């Protein structure tokens, strides 16, 4: 059994929600606990990307889970927690049914409001019914039902108990379903045989039923009723306005928590021609931003999540003290040794590349272009290869090549450049701090290592629990999904994950890549805009990768880019926003600072989980500023056709024979 198979909290049973709960509070997470106090009367919008833990957090406050943690005792829930959580999904309403033109504008909004009134009332009455039965206070139920009946505009029903009320509401809801179905099928819009009579005024039941409860069960008059509405992003703008109006009109003992994807929070309008004001009528919490910012706390949170899940498979007493030790770790020396063995007697790929680059210029007739190489001189090529060679360590050889290419890009004599690099390497062996190699190692080691691993088809770059945490970047679902896929890969490789031995790097890499692809495919993008976002992400990722894997990367550990506000216009801006909304790109808050008195630049990083897909770094170090032409070619759908040319033009400055000089300046800045 894969202990990480369930990655979505929505797939958990109520018992699982309680069982797998890991608290993100404490010294680092105090902020979260204070902001999410269910006794606080201030409504909250809880926003976050897919998989940030929103659902688990919201469901944790739902009444059935409150009961589980209070020994299934309703009275203890009321006494200990002093609130009742009523959680439901707005997605369960199939709310697009109310957007049909066949219903007419006014009618569809009225029907939606009425439906919501019935839907939410049913949910809260089911909870109250359970409480009444648990407390054994059925003697007051009839009077309570009588008051509920008086809230109807008009109704010809007798309510003896709550079951009668709920049955009635269900029947009324069915009438709405019938009206919608029949409007879908009617060819004649004037056919009004199925028109539903609206029997409840907007907000009456939702806001008054809790009040009636506190009236009839006065010993619990201080209990808060917390309506938790998740999937706010799934309803239309006019439907959101209705929800906002409920928040506006709320009265004690009610409050609201609204869960939504970041992109779903699009309007704060109400029916009162006023807008909800942040910190006055509501508070906004961006969960994934908090998790990303609280790095240490998030790391320990992930470790705890890992342990909690692993308890399903492994006995607590046999847990390894260091969870990283379940996983084979990357050993640089071993990998380099393996590369040497693999290429013993053969030419390594980076050397093949160098030879090919040199061959391309020795055939040139113009000696200036040959940069000191003799025409068609294979001996010169062999000399350079020999001079730069470090047979015992292919990574140091890559460092040499980097410096050599850098000199080449400056149009220096190539033979002399190779000798210069060799002398620097000799200096590095004895006095490393004085050598150019020191700076290469400091800034570019990870990139050159990544190049070497990819060229030689050696794995191991992404491995270890800490790496999984970094890759997930504040998103618990990504973290669990990585573990899930690694577990599957390990089984496929005949390993015994977590039970015996360690999980190989191969299994880890395969699982991580699977998770990366899943994240990419599951983005829930739609329509032509969705296709354009996919294309843009592919463009920017390939571009960053192209820079990283060039002969002289202009920035180190490149996974980020900046765009001047002057360049982010119209369609490109729309695509970038969508990419951020769906977490393909993460906007880095520090990016919005003045470069000079008139410019603001936006700073973005490709979501770390996509790093394995394009072999980008996880860490953020270098930032590449995109020119206007690149912004257009990468992000503007009508300019996508220019991307290949823009890409080639840019890369020509980073790859031998370096026909374009401009990008070298960025690198020289770095080396100063």
């Amino acid at each position, binding site marked *: 059994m*894969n202990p990480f*198979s369930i990655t*979505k909290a*929505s*797939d958990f049973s109520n018992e699982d929600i309680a069982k797998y709960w890991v608290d993100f509070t404490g010294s680092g997470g105090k902020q979260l606990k204070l902001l999410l106090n269910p006794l606080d009367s201030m409504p909250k919008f809880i926003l976050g990307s897919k998989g940030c833990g929103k*659902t688990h957090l919201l469901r944790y406050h739902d009444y059935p889970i409150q009961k589980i943690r209070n020994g299934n005792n309703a009275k203890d829930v009321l006494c200990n927690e002093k609130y009742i959580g009523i959680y439901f*999904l707005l*997605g*369960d*309403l*199939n709310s*697009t*049914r109310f957007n*049909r033109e*066949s219903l007419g504008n006014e009618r569809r909004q009225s029907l939606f409001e009425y439906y919501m009134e*019935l*839907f939410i009332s*049913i949910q809260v009455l*089911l909870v109250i019914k359970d409480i009444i039965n648990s407390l054994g206070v059925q003697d007051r139920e009839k009077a309570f039902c009588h008051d509920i009946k008086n809230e109807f505009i008009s109704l010809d029903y007798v309510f003896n108990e709550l*079951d009668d009320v*709920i*049955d009635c*509401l*269900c*029947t009324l*809801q*069915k009438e709405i*379903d019938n009206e*919608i*179905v029949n409007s*879908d*099928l009617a*060819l004649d819009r004037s056919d009004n045989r199925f028109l539903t009579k609206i029997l409840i005024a907007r907000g009456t039941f939702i806001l008054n039923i809790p009040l009636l409860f506190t009236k009839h069960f006065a010993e619990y008059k201080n209990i808060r009723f917390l309506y938790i509405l*998740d*999937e706010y992003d799934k309803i239309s703008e006019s439907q959101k306005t209705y929800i906002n109006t409920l928040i506006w009109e709320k009265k004690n003992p009610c409050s609201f928590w609204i869960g939504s994807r970041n992109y779903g929070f699009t309007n704060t309008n109400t029916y009162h021609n006023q807008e909800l004001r942040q910190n006055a009528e509501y508070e906004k919490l961006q969960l994934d931003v908090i998790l990303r910012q609280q790095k240490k706390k998030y790391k320990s949170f992930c470790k705890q999540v890992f342990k909690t899940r692993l308890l399903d498979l492994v006995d607590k007493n046999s847990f390894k003290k260091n969870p990283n030790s379940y996983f084979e770790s990357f050993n640089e020396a071993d990998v380099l040794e393996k590369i040497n063995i693999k290429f013993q007697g053969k030419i390594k790929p980076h050397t093949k590349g160098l030879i090919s680059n040199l061959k391309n210029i020795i055939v040139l007739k113009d000696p200036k272009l040959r940069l000191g190489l003799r025409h068609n001189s294979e001996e010169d090529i062999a000399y350079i290869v020999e001079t730069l060679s470090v047979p015992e360590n292919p990574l140091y050889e890559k460092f040499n090549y980097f410096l050599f290419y850098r000199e080449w890009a400056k149009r220096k004599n190539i033979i002399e450049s190779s000798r210069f690099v060799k002398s620097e390497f000799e200096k590095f062996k004895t006095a490393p701090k004085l050598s150019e190699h020191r700076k290469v190692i400091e800034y570019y080691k990870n990139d050159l290592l990544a190049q070497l691993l990819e060229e030689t088809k050696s794995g191991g770059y992404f491995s270890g629990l800490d790496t999984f945490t970094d890759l997930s970047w504040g998103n618990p679902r990504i973290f669990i*999904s990585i573990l899930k896929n690694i577990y599957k890969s390990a089984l496929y490789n005949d390993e015994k994950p977590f039970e015996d031995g360690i999980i190989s790097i191969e299994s880890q890499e395969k699982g991580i890549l699977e998770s990366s692809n*899943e994240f990419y*495919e*599951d983005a*829930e*993008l*739609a*329509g*032509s805009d*969705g*296709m354009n976002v*996919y294309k843009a992400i592919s463009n920017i990722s390939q571009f960053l990768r192209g820079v990283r894997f060039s002969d002289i990367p202009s920035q180190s550990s490149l996974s980020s880019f900046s765009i001047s506000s002057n360049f982010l216009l119209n369609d490109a801006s729309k695509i970038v926003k969508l990419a951020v909304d769906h977490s393909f790109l993460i906007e880095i808050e520090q990016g919005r600072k003045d470069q000079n008195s008139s410019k603001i630049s936006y700073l973005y990083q490709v979501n770390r989980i996509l790093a394995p897909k394009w072999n980008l770094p996880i860490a953020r170090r270098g930032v590449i500023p995109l020119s206007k032409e690149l912004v257009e070619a990468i992000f503007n759908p009508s300019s996508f056709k220019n991307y290949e040319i823009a890409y080639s033009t840019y890369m020509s400055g980073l790859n031998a024979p370096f026909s374009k000089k401009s990008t070298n300046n960025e690198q020289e800045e770095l080396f100063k």
Partner: protein
Amino acid sequence: MLLFQKKAQITNKKNFLNSVMDYTIFYKEQIADNDLANHSKWDLYISAYNQNNRIRQIFSLSNAIEKHWLIFPEFDFNPSEYPQLAANEKIFNEPVSISTDSVKSYLKKVDITKYSNICIDITGFTRASLIYFIRMLSSLNLKKMDIIYSEPTEYKDREFTVFSNLPKYAEPIPGCSEINPLSSKKDLLIVASGYDHQLIIKVASYKKSWSTKYQIFGLPSLQPDMYQENRFKAYQANSTMGDDTFNRFAPANDPFVTAQTIQNIVSKHLDYSNLYLSPLSTKAQTLGFILYYLYEGIGKHVSIIFPSSEKYSKQTSVGASKTWKYTIELP
């Protein structure tokens, strides 16, 4: 237990035990070109236009007093691409943006109830328009019709064939949705999974969680290698569908066995809170889904959901292997 809840459960069980509809009694036959030409005349023949030669060939061979072409907006045909018309043929190209609106607009213009003997070639329909069309015919009390379906020899680019641009979010087909207000804890999803994994992802993402999920694959497939291609593509939606999805199989060209398969699945989950059906595979299987819905889904907490696209490819298949005629009766 609430009376409403009790009623729903009793209805599910009772209807199942009493009716136990046997869809395999419906008649299907493989037909050749001269069968079509020699078939007794239909009053009305309806087809949805696309650039598949076979659809046009069958349209021309079929023996009918009146013939109607439906042009759906998502295919984005220019008038210069429309077919040439014979005297008894008409084109219906409604000024709307989605195919279900096309269907409604067509049915407002044409009193279909005056035709006693109808044939519909479903090959070129979009799935959403096909479901809605049959649903509308049922609501208009049409009881019996012939359905034509042509199998392709292969899809243009095999498993990499692009059928449409990125689909929009899934939503209920008009006229095919009723919700259980009490609970979504035991929601059951049955998907006929086709080649387009993005459709499967959209459907699986329609709700945050499902109690139980089934995928129906077309086996036997239309062509021998199509099953493998289908599984390969469907796997790309696996992380959204989940490893806990059950697989079932029904012939890709048989609506009746498909409907029967759905019934068999549902019989094991009669306590579902909501049943969601989503046909994402062949038109023949889609027909099976709508048949099941009409016979066993109306008035219950059953919805057909589908993620439509803004644009569909004008031609996705190559050649024609078999052509089928299904004779269906609606409840």
